[in-house]
């Protein structure tokens, strides 16, 4: 299904997104600790500030709680190792999620090589009871169907959607995280949204 009128999304952050283009990095205190040689203090601050969002990103990208826990830890272990070399070309948060994206993709490849395609969080996937004709989908059913439909997308597209909306990154920051051009990522996201809509409506039998 091709979108009838693809919408070019404005490059706006959402939720609690941090604007990487601003002159002051919200994590400048982490940079200060690194400059003073206090890597442990810097890591503690990173974990306190970004631990939960990194976990949620890993959890939704991998759909496996145990794997997400492991990958989350790997992210911060790698961050600790790489902190001395942090060049400040991007914000700390952007840099951290670049590590997270790599670790997630590595985990996906390892899982595929191991032949394990069972995603633990979906083990109890129960077909959604269809609403009556004409009934619109409520937010709960929408959320459930969204999780299922995200699984059908390629990993890189799913990750782009999570970075854009769940984490609120601008396309410029996503370009740093994903090592892709902002326009490419914007096109991926723009194409994915109508596909998700079609999948959700097909799955639930309702209308958004």
């Amino acid at each position, binding site marked *: 299904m091709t979108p009838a009128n693809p919408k070019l999304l404005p490059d706006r952050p959402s939720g609690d997104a941090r604007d990487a283009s601003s002159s002051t990095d919200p994590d400048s205190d982490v940079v200060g600790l690194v400059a003073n040689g206090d890597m442990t203090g810097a890591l503690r601050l990173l974990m306190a500030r970004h631990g939960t969002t990194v976990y949620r990103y890993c959890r939704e990208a991998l759909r496996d709680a145990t794997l997400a826990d492991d990958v989350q830890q790997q992210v911060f272990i790698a961050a600790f190792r790489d902190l001395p070399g942090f060049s400040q070309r991007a914000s700390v948060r952007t840099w951290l999620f670049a590590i997270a994206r790599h670790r997630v993709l590595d985990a996906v490849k390892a899982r595929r090589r191991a032949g394990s395609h069972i995603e633990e969080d979906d083990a109890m996937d129960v077909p959604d009871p269809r609403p009556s004709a004409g009934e619109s989908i409520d937010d709960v059913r929408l959320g459930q169907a969204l999780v299922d439909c995200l699984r059908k997308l390629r990993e890189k597209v799913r990750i782009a959607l999570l970075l854009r909306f*769940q984490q609120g990154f601008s396309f410029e920051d996503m370009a740093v995280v994903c090592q892709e051009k902002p326009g490419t990522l914007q096109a991926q996201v723009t194409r994915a949204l109508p596909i998700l809509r079609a999948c959700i409506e097909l799955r639930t039998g309702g209308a958004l």
Partner: protein
Amino acid sequence: MTDPIERIEAALTRLGAEHEPPAGWEARVFAKIAQERHAEPAPRRPRWWMFAIPAVSVSVAVVAAIVVCWPRPDGFTLAVTFDRHSEVVRSGGAPNAGDVAHATVTGGGPHRAVWIYRDDVLVTACPGGDRTQCESSGEETTATVRLTMGKYQMVALTSSVPIAPPAGELDSDLARAQDAGATLDRKPVMVR
């Protein structure tokens, strides 16, 4: 009526909001970092005198005994000694990076343990650690670690009941051990 695409975007924004990382994950990160550091080979710094001395032995074993003066009625003591691997001698006998520390707990109850922390993160725990790091015999348990720069805490524990293994973070580990009835003794060691 909200645009369907905007509803999907909003749902994506909320995705995973109910999830929280498992408790204690930060301590596990620090524990793994400590393990990785300990697995790294010690840097080898060739010095001119290493070529002058015949290749029978190049390490000078000078033992500086530092005994912690908190003897318990039951003879529970913590002793920390060092094998020196550097020609640099610091005032007060403080060890250097590269030296090997041996922390030995003696006496006390039927159960003993030695835990070594660096910058509040667990480096090794005996019993339970690597065979090359732990040694137990009769009334003694010894933990051994090659020192790198940082602030170490050598902790000895004894108890009448089995001592639960540490999770990896100094303050919470010691609090938990004391709550379970263990007696502790500790000595800080600064390595520069």
